[in-house]
């Protein structure tokens, strides 16, 4: 039991998980056809990158890596608010959320 409790995880596994999450986000960005789901894929990419920031902060015992994640979170919150407002404005003008139908920049 003691050997089980003291088991450790290589940090490269965390980095691999972060890379896979980022790639899944990119794939979602490419295959999803709903504006909101495309936006959620971007959030998934941001989360993948945050995980590698925290991992490296743990590796180098650096607090600033964690603070960077904090800033990314704040910027992501601002981005989500503005992005969803844009989605609402687009839906009002077009009455659709399918990215194939939204092909003009003009509202």
């Amino acid at each position: 039991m003691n050997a089980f409790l003291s088991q450790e995880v290589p940090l490269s596994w965390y980095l691999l998980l972060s890379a896979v999450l980022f790639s899944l986000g990119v794939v979602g960005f490419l295959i999803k056809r709903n504006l909101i789901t495309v936006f959620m894929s971007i959030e998934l990419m941001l989360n993948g990158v945050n995980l590698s920031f925290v991992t490296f902060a743990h590796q180098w015992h650096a607090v600033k890596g964690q603070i960077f994640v904090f800033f990314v979170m704040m910027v992501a919150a601002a981005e989500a608010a503005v992005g969803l407002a844009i989605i609402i404005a687009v839906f009002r003008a077009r009455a659709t959320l399918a990215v194939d139908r939204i092909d003009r920049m003009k509202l």
Partner: protein
Amino acid sequence: MHLLFFIVFAGFCLAGAINLLLQSHPINSALSLIVVMVSLAVLYLLLGAEFLAIAQVIVYAGAIMVLFTFVIMLLNASREERTLGSRVALRVGFPAVVAILALIATVILHAQGLGVARLSDGITSTEELSKVLFTDLLLPFEVTSVLILIAILGAVALAGHDDRNPHGDGERTGEK
């Protein structure tokens, strides 16, 4: 114990992310994204970032995802129609994703000097974090608060009702 926690929550994380891609209804995708974010909070805690774990739950899984589900319900988003997507995404996008993932994985697996994470590693306390945040990084912190203020104004300006048009949005969708 750390290994067990890592395997369980990394599994939840990947399952949620893959489910996000497979679901065709946006609300199901949003719920699986919440699963991903909460499991990531546990992984942050395993890496000793207690403040970030709590902030992840409150800000991401709480505030941002509430905003997402609210917009999905407000717009009454329905099942998405499957199309083949663009040819550029098929021919350039997916090979590029595979190439980037392979490149990053190779670099990580060959990297020297990466340590290990244990449960006994100790935790970065919020006090330690805030000391650096409010002394060395005070200016970026204040700039971010201005950014949030601008984002609030931008969101209101973009999504708010147009007062000059008394008939509301129904009129605007009909006029084109």
